[in-house]
């Protein structure tokens, strides 16, 4: 069975009223990278995942989870 990484980035970002560019500025990556992570196209490195979690003040395992298709 195929596994993929699901995330709650868009939900958390929109809940705070942040744009992708604002989240990108907090994390220190480009808007394009936030965009591809939100859409599940790109799996971020541990470093970036931790920085995103820090920006949202949420545990990384809350933001990212492995799901089976």
């Amino acid at each position: 069975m195929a596994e993929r990484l699901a995330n709650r980035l868009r939900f958390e970002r929109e809940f705070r009223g942040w744009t992708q560019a604002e989240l990108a500025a907090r994390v220190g990556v480009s808007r394009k990278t936030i965009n591809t992570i939100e859409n599940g196209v790109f799996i971020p490195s541990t470093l970036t995942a931790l920085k995103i979690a820090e920006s949202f003040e949420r545990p990384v395992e809350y933001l990212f989870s492995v799901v089976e298709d």
Partner: protein
Amino acid sequence: MHDIHDIEEAERLGRARSRIFSVLAVVFFAGQSMYFASSPETRDSHARVGAWLILVILMLLLLATGGFLLRGRKVRDLLNDEGSRLNRLASQALGFWVTVLSALALYVDSMFEPVSFNEGVHILVTLGVGAALISFAAREARAHRLG
């Protein structure tokens, strides 16, 4: 926290980069089509080979660095963040496979029709570098477009 203006500039430059790379690859392939369509006697003039060589070196430099070397460090780091670096690596891998498979095809072809060393290198480098550049431009354009 990064400056939002740096994020916006990196975004603008990233979009421009994928367009510039696409156009450069199309111009490159069009130029090489004309090169191979011309007669072998006039094909290998110093000017034509020199222009090809300069373009190839420029494209390799762009593929290796991501371009925009004169921009500030912060913007360049954003422009070449881990998403772009991964796209670049995937494109370079594609360039490698295109080169190897083209070399195999050329090897088989040379059994039926002689291919000079210079012609062979020209074909392989053109296909490998061109494919890598187009692939990088397409991956970056897709990443900008999603959402």
